[in-house]
């Protein structure tokens, strides 16, 4: 079998959606830490977002399925804890897609700079926790819509 080059494989993984926020890929999320050939086996290192993220096992399954669908049979997934995942690894493309989707992307200021729906800067936090571990619940005081903020960690 011809081993596809690593760049091609990164491209394939960039088509695997995050199960909870399907507009971004697992590559956009920054959780794929390494893709490398070890002889005939492809090794993919994945880091969890949050320790208790229930999507972790689904992500592993989706990555493995996507690679098998491309004809790769020898795939080994390994969990890599260090260095711990940070929202700094979210790609610029991913951040733009998040905002488009209605989720305010992480911001170093510790809160969203503007409402992802109407663009108003008049926003307030409702709760530090939102619909998933990685998001907080905010609301816009201009358009009055609630929205998720992808919090920094």
């Amino acid at each position, binding site marked *: 079998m011809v081993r596809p080059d690593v760049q091609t494989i990164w491209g394939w993984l960039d088509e695997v959606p995050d199960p909870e926020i399907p507009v971004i890929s697992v590559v956009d999320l920054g959780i794929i830490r390494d893709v490398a050939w070890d002889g005939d086996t492809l090794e993919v290192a994945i880091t969890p977002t949050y*320790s*208790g993220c229930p999507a972790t096992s689904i992500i592993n399954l989706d990555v493995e399925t996507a690679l098998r669908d491309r004809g790769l049979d020898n795939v080994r997934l390994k969990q890599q*804890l260090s260095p711990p995942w940070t929202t700094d690894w979210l790609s610029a493309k991913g951040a733009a897609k998040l905002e488009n989707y209605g989720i305010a992307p992480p911001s170093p200021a510790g809160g969203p700079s503007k409402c992802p729906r109407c663009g108003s800067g008049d926003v307030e936090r409702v*709760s530090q926790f939102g619909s998933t571990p990685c998001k907080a*619940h905010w609301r816009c005081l201009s358009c009055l819509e609630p929205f998720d903020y992808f919090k920094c*960690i």
Partner: protein
Amino acid sequence: MSAALFETLLRLGDNTLVLGHRVSEWCGKAPVLEEDIALANTALDLIGQTQMWLSYAAEVEGAGRSADDLAMLRDVWDFRNILMVERPNLDFGHTMMRQFLFDAYHRALLSGLAGSGDPRVAEIAAKAVKEATYHLDRSAETVIALGDGTEVSHAKMQTALDLLWPYTGEMFHSDEADAEMVAAGVIPDPEGLRPAWMDTVTATMAEATLTLPDSNFAHKGGRTGKQHTEHLGHMLTQMQWLQRAYPDATW
């Protein structure tokens, strides 16, 4: 295997397991939806951390047990969590006060462990301390809001603090296993964590207009396994029920 390292990993993993289970008991019945979600997410983080600690514990033990076996098939006397985390939730105020007292300790402990000479301990702690930090932000905020709230909420928070205070001393207690791990550079000295914890607690309680009890009495026996409270056994009948009734069940 290193008996002291195994003991240490059980202490870390059992604290997060038992507290994680307690916090998850709020799922579906917290006072408001936001709190329900926040508590469930906190529980998830704690259970996720448990998975990492107990997986490593199982490897160190080398007896063919898995993290799941350790969590679901041990009995009360083999658990090494501090007594405070096995206490029943009581009301929401008591749950959040316990969370705050634990989070302040947990952040100090994990910050120290992130510099551990055992690389596996260090990487788990570096991951978990990020979560402990925002757990602490939230529990401190809630304790302040309720303490410095209405007459009723203030009284409930003071009662919770008075009830929990004698359970805090155990966090800083140590024995031979700790001494061995401190000497090996694996863990920070438990007593050395007290000043940072006390600073956080004093500042938060002042803002919450709550009075720190003037007593050093400490209930002990959880982290050594010598004497758990009756509450842990009751909790395990719920938590371990499925694996006890249907051994090795998977789905």
